[in-house]
């Protein structure tokens, strides 16, 4: 039983992470942080590396919650990675951040959040920045 959170270093991601830490400490459940990349771009600003990764670990440790940081580089979409993590860790709750999207943007880019909302087997908490 655990809580899975999709994390990217943006305001939405931070909001989701903060909320997930709170949820995890009240429920006393282990927290699984997923920060993935498809690995198909040269530079992915949403992927947390070296210094930033250490900092993230530090923050999680400071929160006192039992935690795991997953950083899959598997060529899959972020939605798949979060859903996979939720399944393997038998999540009670998935926390994600939402950002504002124009209808056109949604049409072209598809939506990670939307896929998680539709396909998750457990409740999903969507946090806005």
């Amino acid at each position, binding site marked *: 039983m655990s809580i899975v959170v999709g994390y990217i270093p943006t305001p939405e991601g931070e909001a989701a992470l903060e909320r997930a830490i709170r949820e995890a400490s009240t429920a006393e459940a282990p927290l699984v942080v997923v920060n993935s*990349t498809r*690995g*198909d*771009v*040269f*530079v*992915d*600003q949403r*992927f947390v*590396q*070296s210094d930033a*990764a*250490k900092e993230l670990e530090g923050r999680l440790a400071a929160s006192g919650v039992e935690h795991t940081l997953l950083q899959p*580089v598997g*060529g899959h979409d972020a939605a798949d990675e979060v859903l996979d993590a939720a399944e393997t860790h038998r999540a009670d709750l998935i926390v994600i951040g939402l950002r504002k999207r124009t209808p056109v943007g949604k049409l072209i880019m598809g939506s990670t959040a939307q896929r998680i909302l539709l396909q998750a087997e457990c409740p999903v908490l969507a946090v806005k920045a």
Partner: protein
Amino acid sequence: METFDLLMQGFSTAATPMNLLYAFIGVLLGTAVGVLPGIGPAMAVALLLPVTYSLEPTSAFIMFAGIYYGGMYGGSTTSILLNTPGESSTVITAIEGHKMAKSGRAAQALATAAIGSFVAGTIGTALLVAFAPFVVDFAVSLGDPSYLAIIVLALIAVTAVLGGSKLRGFSALGIGLAIGLVGADPVTGQQRLVFGQPLLVDGLDIVVVAVAIFAVGEALWIAAHLRRKPMQTIPVGRPWMGKKDWKRSWKPWLRGTAYGFPFGALPAGGAEIPTFLSYVTEKKLSKHPEEFGHGAIEGVAGPEAANNASAAGTLTPMLALGLPTNATAAVMLAAFIQFGIQPGPLLFDSEPQLVWALIASLFIGNTLLLLINLPLAPVWAKLLQLPRPYLYAGILFFATLGAYAVNLQAFDLVILLLLGLLGFAMRRYGLPVLPLVIGLILGPRAEESLRTTLQLSAGNISGLWSEPVAVVVYIIVALVLLAPLVLKVIRKRRPQSVLAGNVPLGVGETAADNDGVVAGTATVSQRDGDRVRPDSNRDGDPTGQGPDEASGISDGTEARHRAEEIKHEREKS
């Protein structure tokens, strides 16, 4: 002042709005391909060859010149921001440049690289203007025996000096020469290696070969070993330098230029040695030697200037003698042949307008680079967000399109595929591609000279060394071939000495106190007595990332080895 007049005429050709536009496109494309990992100026020029068919040769070469200089510039940008030296010549820049960027001085590192490139490129081009006519005069006075000797020297030097394994270099050279044989013999009309294929009678299209080796082979090779992990970039603002940075930069720029130009002009001189020499010199002369290894601006300014000056130097033998000494120059020579222009000493006489417009456009391109790129650095960093599949699919797409557009024959695509697979296999098994391309370009010219030489001597083989220059050049060829053997013997006697000479002390040093990721740098090669390959640290993970990879066992032991070796080197010096 004849040269000056010609140069001014060149400027008037190069400064027409159309040609300025091509120069602009050239520097933009060049910088873009320099920034993008996996694509370099040689590949970019090769891919553009077919597109430039219908252009004026002058316009095409103005664009190519822009790509050449732009590629240098773009390469230094990525080596500073990403610590991924794309070419061996920017390895040194990456050492101090990336450290500067990490400590928040990316703007100054980029600025000193850009302005240094401009200074060195401009001085280098001026040196080209000053020296090329002399080289041409000298070359024109030579007979075929000497010219043949010089071609042989160029072939041997590129094959034997560059790259790790001589044997594999000569294998690649042999393949290139064999490809150059295909088609009807120009003297007798005899068909060689045609196998009854009418499409082969005209020989293999040099554009198709260049695109296959540089674009298809490279794209397939990268696709087979695609890096899946994103690199880590350092955000930049607009590059700028303070007064103190200027003060610390200008001398290294000039010294770097002085190292770079002559090495670039030598066959097989390349850019690695001068950038390294510049680095060592700056370290020695600096008032802040303690900053070296932690982001010293001199360590970016000097090598970056040396790199660009060597690029200008490379153009001297290319334009004055028709000898390519690096991949981009080789592809540009292929372009000359494609346009029906015979490269060689007579080029300055037969195509003065083209040559001088090209040289003038180097000055223009250099200035454009500075003007465009200082403000655009953040935009270039954005280019790295391009998904890899699109980049490599695009390379294959344009390679196919270009090779097909030459003759509109699917047969050319079969050749493209076969030679692309050859290029893939060569990369897989460590056969360098440069000797192949240079053999392909110079082979037919060597044969021509050989025939004329022996025709003049009525078949007497002594005609080969009938000129003093030819004798001298053959002696140099012998030295190039024998020197490494002699060195090897000496090294065996003194196994402890650092005879490799060009072992970049600095590289090893930073590698040790780096995040322990620049694996297997030059220092390793002392043990097996092989030549130092400055680009061998590409094999490691130079991106300075990946905590999980970096903490691997092998890295730890490697770092310790290196630390010991460095300590040893320090004691010596």
